[in-house]
């Protein structure tokens, strides 16, 4: 266990403790700020500032909306694809699997550049084709920008999550499936009533990981922000933290926002786990 604890302390606990420390003890520029600065205990000042900042609350709002759109869509699509592959309905299974998984191997920053090219009016062939069909759409507009990023996220993560579901489905005992067929269930009924409930733990895991991924959303909007003013420099909490530390030179604020993001992530993960466990417990009791 020693290597585990070394890593845990080195890459997780130490940074967290540093962030917490930075959020309470920061360079204090009192009065007008022109005097010498000193590192002092500032209490909850940085936290109060973060919660009083409408741009941070806006950033939290953006990722929450993103979660609500992205996670159900991702789970639904990848589960459907996995069930289709598992049912044998799809021909050329390995090829399809490979094709869907491939985008996941593209680094996020490259993916964002590819999509940036496809979204930017004037250079995008997609927008050109749509314009040819008399459809004018600004894929980086106020209303379309979140769906556009959701699309990138789905493209990147669909294949990976589908593989998780597909692997779980392979582990479903074949006799259960055969029994349901004998009982007269069609392929759709078998998929929804037998297979899907049996891989529930995989679904919970995917929801959890996607939630954490979304709360830390950074690369894609950061890159897209260069070509649309709709994505501002504090669009997501991670971008807010980056901006606070490196543009505003305000490390106390950045640290406090990081701690708040961590607490939000832990709390939401806990809620998801509780919710799935309670369901399981209730069923066990019933």
């Amino acid at each position, binding site marked *: 266990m020693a290597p585990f604890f070394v890593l845990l302390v080195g890459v997780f606990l130490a940074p967290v403790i540093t962030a917490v420390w930075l959020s309470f003890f920061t360079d204090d520029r009192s009065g*007008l*700020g022109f005097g010498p600065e000193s590192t002092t205990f500032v209490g909850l000042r940085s936290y109060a500032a973060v919660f009083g*900042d409408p*741009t*941070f609350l806006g950033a939290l709002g953006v990722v929450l909306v993103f979660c609500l759109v992205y996670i159900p869509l991702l789970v639904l699509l990848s589960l459907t694809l996995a069930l289709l592959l598992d049912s044998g309905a799809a021909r050329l299974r390995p090829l399809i699997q490979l094709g869907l998984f491939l985008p996941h191997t593209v680094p996020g920053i490259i993916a964002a550049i590819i999509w940036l090219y496809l979204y930017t009016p004037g250079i995008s062939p997609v927008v050109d084709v749509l314009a040819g069909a008399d459809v004018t759409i600004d894929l980086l507009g106020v209303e379309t920008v979140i769906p556009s990023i959701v699309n990138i996220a789905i493209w990147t993560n669909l294949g990976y999550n589908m593989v998780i579901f597909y692997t779980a489905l392979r582990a479903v005992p074949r006799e259960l499936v055969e029994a349901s067929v004998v009982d007269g269930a069609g392929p759709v009924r078998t998929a929804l009533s037998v297979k899907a409930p049996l891989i529930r733990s995989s679904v919970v895991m995917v929801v959890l990981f996607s939630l954490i991924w979304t709360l830390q959303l950074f690369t894609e909007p950061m890159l897209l922000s260069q070509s649309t*003013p*709709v994505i501002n420099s504090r669009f997501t909490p991670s971008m807010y933290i980056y901006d606070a530390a490196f543009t505003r030179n305000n490390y106390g*604020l950045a640290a406090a926002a990081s701690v708040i993001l961590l607490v939000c992530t832990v709390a939401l993960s806990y809620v998801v786990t509780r919710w799935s466990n309670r369901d399981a417990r209730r069923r066990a009791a019933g």
Partner: protein
Amino acid sequence: MSGPPSRRTLLAAGLAAPLIGALGGCGPSEGSLSAGDRTRITFWSALRGSQEVVAAFNASQDRIHVDFEQVPTGTQGGYAKLGNAARAGNAPDVATIEYPQLPGFAIDGVARDLNDLVTDDLRAQLLPQALERTTFDGRLYSVPLDLAPMVLHYRKDVFDHHGLRAPRTWAEFADLGRTIRDRVEGSRITAFPTDGASQFAAFVCQAGGQWFDIRDDAWRVAMTDAPTRRVAEYWQGLIDEGLVHTTPTNSQQYNAQVSDGSILTRLTGSWDAGAQMNARPGQAGQWAVAPLPQWEEDDALLSDHGGSTFAVSTDSARPEAAMEFIAWQVAHPDAFRARLSAGTSTQFPAAPALVDVGREALDPDYYDGQDLYSLFDAEAAKVRDDWVWGPRMSSTFQVMHDNFARVGPGRMSVLDAVAAAQEGTIPDLHALGLNVHAVHG
């Protein structure tokens, strides 16, 4: 390992130094002197022509040698680089900082208080309104290089063709906007710059607003004061009436609008006259420059727009040498000549004695012989000396840009965008521990 040899090297250097100094004194040229014996200082700048200025300075004397490093412009990472270097304790001796960002660097302890270093002689050579801009709480934090008064750049050829003249008041400007919309096919008077918080600030400054101020040992923030409301409502009217485009100036679209005559005026600092010459040589003879419109005809208020200053870092071990270099850079005619040798520029120096140097270096043909420097000289005198930039101006501008991008008829208003910039700035200032007095409305 490193002990004895380094001591020996030091001794050797100590013995050799006077010798080389003596040789240098009777040598044929100062250039042959090795840089090792001079006081070495480092200098970072994104300004064009800095390399030439440094070379001229190094050749002009034999006591100080400046090592120059070209850095990206502030928003492209230059300021982040400076901030990080200061945190790491290796900031350059001399750094270039624009007016709006200076308070932030002063507060962060990057820029040094120069009161004890700057000579009265140097102060006397610089425009007082420029020096006021770099003085906070009675302490001078940087030395101004240039001060760019806001002016109206307009398409004289189109104006002449349609019998129009440069507007003297903002009311005339709006009327002219209507005339242009109705009479000049495909043109608008100008573009509201959605990435132009600094221009908007200049309009507010001219109207008598005061976004930031230092009062009673606190930062007073009032970004929606009455003059700001007046300016915001004025531009909102132009946008709603369809008299202006809304375009980010740092874009291909804006570049095209200026090039193809979609917009007929630009409201920017005096430096933009030179930028125009470099960017669109094909439009030679088409543009002229006029004073910025005033709110009332006999008002004489103005703001600057752009302009740079030189700060000595708190880390600097050789602040006197740094200051000597800065003084030469901002006030010596040879420095300005060297800077202008790097390319066309209409920089308006903060040292009035250098205005003639700029006038002589400028090719008069592009503006049809118009004496730009005399105009700038007259306009610079109107620039307010009591405008104060805030402690986190890059960020304040950024939030304003984020919101300006959403401004349009039936959408977010200009005033909302400015108010949002204040809301997005105040928490920052609180987190820094500053005394803040925020005024709403």
